[in-house]
């Protein structure tokens, strides 16, 4: 039997205004989490509902895991203000991880804003499994979008592993001027990404994921997206966090993002 347990806050770092990386200690999460999975954190004893965060980094030896979040409302504000040592009631890891790249396809990781978080862990896992035979052809490519330089957070520890994200920013202040999907198209157009030999993993705002799905479909690239929903329970009992399925009917019209996802084959869902 699993159960919610108290993680211990190790530290909090404000990486950009309102954007926080937090390290928590809870060995089972550090050990079990796979990229794409999330933890459901209780921001404090006074809160009635948990908040979902992708697992951003893990250190199984130290028994710690990291989350990356942006202060939006009371939940994230509460978390960001905790003192080191504070207990954080944690349920997880939850959800299904990213599926492995199909044979012969190079992973292209496309993230918007803090959608980068699960992709960062995914890049680390991909590198771990391919390091031995790591080559230009199998190394993950990472395309990241942000509003501006200020909001662009470099994926934690990735550059040391030799992955350099290609950036796009809405205002052109950070890399490619434009949307990250435009960047993807640009990279395909100039031959940097070969759709026939790529698989896309996306995480970011829903509209971006819809555009990504559309673009991948056009290029006949498999595409997996990680989705967000308001999640009362996070472990599959409330049926609140649903997404509409293309081939669903009756009971299967809607599936739960928390348990049947958060990662879905983009071609199967209705945005």
């Amino acid at each position, binding site marked *: *039997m*699993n*159960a*919610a347990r108290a993680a211990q806050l190790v530290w909090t770092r404000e990486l950009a205004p309102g954007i926080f990386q937090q390290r928590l200690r809870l060995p089972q999460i550090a050990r079990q989490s796979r990229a794409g999975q999330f933890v459901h954190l*209780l921001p404090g004893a006074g*809160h*009635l*509902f*948990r908040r979902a965060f992708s697992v951003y980094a893990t250190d199984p030896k130290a028994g710690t895991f990291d989350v990356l979040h942006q202060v939006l409302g009371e939940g994230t504000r509460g978390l960001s203000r905790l003192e080191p040592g504070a207990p954080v*009631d944690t*349920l997880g890891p939850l959800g299904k991880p990213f599926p492995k790249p199909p044979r012969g396809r190079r992973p292209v990781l496309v993230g918007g804003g803090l959608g980068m978080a699960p992709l960062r862990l995914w890049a680390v896992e991909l590198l771990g499994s391919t390091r031995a035979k790591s080559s230009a052809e199998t190394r993950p490519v990472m395309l990241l979008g942000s509003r501006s330089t200020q909001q662009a957070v470099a994926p934690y520890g990735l550059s040391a592993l030799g992955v350099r994200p290609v950036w796009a920013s809405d205002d052109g202040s950070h890399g490619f001027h434009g949307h990250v999907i435009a960047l993807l198209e640009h990279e395909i157009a100039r031959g940097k990404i070969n759709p026939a030999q790529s698989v896309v993993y996306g995480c970011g705002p829903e509209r971006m994921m819809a555009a990504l799905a559309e673009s991948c479909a056009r290029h006949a690239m498999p595409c997996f997206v990680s989705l967000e*929903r*308001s999640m*009362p*329970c*996070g*472990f*599959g*009992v*409330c*049926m*609140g*966090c*649903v*997404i*509409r399925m293309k081939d*669903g*009917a*009756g*009971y299967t*019209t*809607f599936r739960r993002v928390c*348990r049947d996802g958060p990662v879905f084959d983009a071609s199967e869902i209705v945005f």
Partner: protein
Amino acid sequence: MAKSATKVDLKVTIAGVTFATPVWTASGTAGTGEEMETWTDVKRLGALVTKSVSLKPRSGHPYPRTCETASGMLNCIGLQNKGIDAFIAEELPRLAKMPTRAVVNIVGDSIEELVELAQRLSDVPGPDCLELNLSCPNVARGIDQGSDPKWVGECVAAVRKATRLPLIVKVTPNTNDIVSLARAAEGSGADAISAINTLVGMSVNHQSLKPRLSNITGGLSGPAIKPVALAAVFKIARAVTIPVVGIGGISTGLDAAEFIIAGASAVQVGTAIFRDPLAPIHAAEELAQYLKGRGLARVADLVGTIQV
């Protein structure tokens, strides 16, 4: 009241069925038990009350289906469920093996549907009890019928004839007179009354000018409604002789104790499960502590002890 180092027995018997504890899960907040098996020790649940099942599969309403409110939440899940065929084929076998009582909650658009559901569930292993959801506020005709004592009486009478399983009737709080509904159910053969289901509510996003729920209105649950639920349980318990199962905003063992003092023989924990799947188990533990502190050996010793 004598305070002694009593060994507390949490067992309760309702409609001839014995439950390990008086703290159950509430319908729609624990699925059909599969996830609860992952996240809790289900044998320490008094009962697993399943999400309402209907005759035909239902898709439910589109997202957004929930939103948070002050000390509560709204939902308009819309009774998404796989229908009785798939339920019996896929869920019941697991439920039958689960080391806790299975209370199967059924919902229908008509008396005929409810009767058929009850019949279907009577011939198969698994259900220890049926709970009739006559109160879901999310389905067009649910409220009007469910708040009519005459309809409730007819409905319960028909289902009563169709099954030998113990029948718990879940009545709606969206009425001026919940007591008449409970009386009608009792008069038609219900073995117990459960109350309350959610209150009709709504939330508006002042930025988008849109309702926060896809179905505009939804059901309010959580600590916000606890006072409404307690009043309902208190009144019903004084008006009927069958047991009452209290529901509404229960998160802790002391919440459970308050409902039991007001007249409930058992309680269900709903929304609190979303915060912590172990909430019903912790509540049962805290209730045992509370009983012990008061020198009471059994739950029954607390039922309806309110001093008015």
